[in-house]
């Protein structure tokens, strides 16, 4: 009898108390990067709280908190290069911020405007993806395009652990193995898909082992450890750049907040579990590490908070003062040019706009000349 053996590794460098469980590998040793990671995580957590406050006061639509997910997103954002393509799901504020998506754009998106996905600074990245796991296929498509065009870049997609139950995830994983795609798939295993816990989602011991069935490398990292995620993602990207195929990274974390502002997690999970999870959260341990390394202090933190709050307030102001798109914009970007058969409906909307209380001027659009010139 022949036996095939497969294994899944688990990596952690930074313990919850801020000490190192093993020495840091070379690609995560830069103290400036670690400091920037911490600052980004603190900044994003503050912005996250502000976004929730805006929703609670009726100034933002439904919003999914990233509380507890900051290390994963920040590590990915640091590892990706500008030429790579990122395909996010909806809990990727940190990565998107580091890619160049402005806080104003993020607020516009959750505030109900398509303008929020225009991404002036990362024009090839995919927009936030709400339908579960579908973005993984898009990232694979981007990876195929890179291969076809002879570009040595990579595509990276994220998803939650719930998404790994879906066909899109498994079909992409399978293709990534069969075609050796320059693709990195990062699963944010935050234990909860709305009210469905991890153990009901999947009977396998790890999510990462799904990679074995696809013939690609799969590994588990502590998703609350910036260094562990950063190390794994950098390695996976290097592998992709050099034509050695795809990687599945399971980053184990915990969703400290509700699923979204429309959710009440107290209906389905114990406070005691959440309290325990707070002991492992990603920011506290990195702060302790930086303080231990004399790279950060409480005084610096206070100053930094002031700076962060100013930046957040500027973004919120810009968001609240943004002129909404014209009603006609729903037609303007439907097709490259407005098909003649839709001209009547376009005129119908314009006539309706005259009677609807709407402060938007219609100067920029007129019947029959709606052209999509953005690309």
């Amino acid at each position, binding site marked *: 009898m022949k036996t095939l053996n497969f294994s899944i590794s688990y990596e952690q460098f930074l313990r919850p108390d801020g000490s190192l469980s093993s020495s840091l590998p070379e690609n995560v040793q830069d103290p400036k990067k670690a400091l920037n990671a911490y600052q980004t995580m603190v900044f994003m957590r503050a912005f996250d709280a502000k976004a929730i406050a805006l929703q609670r006061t009726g100034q933002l639509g439904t919003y999914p908190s990233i509380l507890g997910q900051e290390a994963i997103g920040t590590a990915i954002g640091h590892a990706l290069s500008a030429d790579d393509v990122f395909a996010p799901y909806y809990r990727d504020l940190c990565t998107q911020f580091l890619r160049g998506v402005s806080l104003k754009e993020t607020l516009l998106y959750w505030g109900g405007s398509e303008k929020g996905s225009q991404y002036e600074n990362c024009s090839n990245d995919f927009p936030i993806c709400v339908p579960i796991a579908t973005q993984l296929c898009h990232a694979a498509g981007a990876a195929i395009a890179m291969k076809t065009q002879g570009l040595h870049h990579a595509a990276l997609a994220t998803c939650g652990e719930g998404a790994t139950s879906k066909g899109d995830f498994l079909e992409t994983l399978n293709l990534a193995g069969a075609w050796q795609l320059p693709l990195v798939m990062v699963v944010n295993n935050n234990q909860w898909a709305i009210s469905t816990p991890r153990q009901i989602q999947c009977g396998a011991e790890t999510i990462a082992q799904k990679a074995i069935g696809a013939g690609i490398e799969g590994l588990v990292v502590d998703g609350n450890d910036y260094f562990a995620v950063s190390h794994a993602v950098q390695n996976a990207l290097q592998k992709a750049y050099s034509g050695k195929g795809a990687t599945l990274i399971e980053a184990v974390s915990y969703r400290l907040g509700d699923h979204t502002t429309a959710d009440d997690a107290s209906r389905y999970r114990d406070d005691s579990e959440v309290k325990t999870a707070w002991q492992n959260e990603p920011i506290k341990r990195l702060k302790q590490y930086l303080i231990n390394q004399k790279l950060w202090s409480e005084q610096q933190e206070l100053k930094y908070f002031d700076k962060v709050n100013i930046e957040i307030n500027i973004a919120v102001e810009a968001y609240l003062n943004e002129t909404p798109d014209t009603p006609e914009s729903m037609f303007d970007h439907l097709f490259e040019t407005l098909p003649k058969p839709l001209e009547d409906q376009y005129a119908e909307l314009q006539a309706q706009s005259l009677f609807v209380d709407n402060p938007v001027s219609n100067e920029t659009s007129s019947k029959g000349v709606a052209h999509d010139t*953005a690309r």
Partner: protein
Amino acid sequence: MIQLVKNDPAQEIKKLTMIESVNLALDYAMTESEAVTILGEDVAVNGGVFRATDNLREKFGVKRVMDTPLAETMIAGISVGMAAQGLRPVAEIQFMGFIYAALEQLIAHAARMRNRTRGRLTCPLVIRAPFGGGIHAPEHHSESTEAIFAHVPGLRVVIPSSPKRAYGLLLSAIRSNDPVIFLEPKRIYRATKSHVMNDGEDLPLDKCFILRQGADMTLVSWGAMIMETMQAAESLAKQGVQCEVIDVASISPIDFDTIATSVRKTGRCCIIHEAARSCGVGAEISASVSETVFPYLKSPITRVTGYDTIMPYFKNENYYLPTVERIVAEVVASIKLIAMGKKEPKHVSL
């Protein structure tokens, strides 16, 4: 067997079947643009189960003609990603009956990519799928569910009904910077041959084609049903009834102007489609024609369609598919204002 009519390499005119003209259009588009990439199940080495992509792998290489794993969701999903990142994927779904796994990707992403990014990313993909009944195929291989896609804003839905229109419309679909669902009526893949000039000339995507002029009645159809509709028109002409036949071709967005102009002239309209009747594209045409040319109507708008039943297995498919006889009977009834079955024309005096 391809017959060469004129041997001019620059502008070859060949007598082709529809499937050959699909292949020719793909060949032309791939030569024209390196971004055009074919993918799907069995499309490369085997050239597609209907041979639509025959020889293209040999000519353009494995990077541009790709056999995918058997997964329709993924095929549509990677097409969205490829299209958003600079390629022009032309994906084949082997039969329309297997396209449903791809719906989420097509509806939630392909149709919306341009709009949700305000034009930053676009989705110039084509999904080709053979559809329709009448070839004695197994279960799930014969349905006509084009209305599902026609209902989705942001998608173009195009159905050719002749080799020439297959060539011109497919070229347009591939050149379009927006997603196109290109449904090929497989019953007429090899039914007729016609002269197709390989000149790269495309045909407009949101325009109907008037195939036959007539003053008495407008017959509106698309896809394989154009065959029965044209035969019915010929048969009716012998009885003195002149029908105008319109091939809708692009069922979304749909060119109502051409249809309405015709019905304004004839005063009568019959819509013929293979798909089930309720909520079919015929219902939309009927409603729109009523809204715009109601005062010109001399009789109620009628439909000859498949029934609101599951498409029967092939032993009974000929009872399901509209026939020349059913079309003729409907037209005659409409002309004579004679009630057919339960459909009593109601004349309300105001």
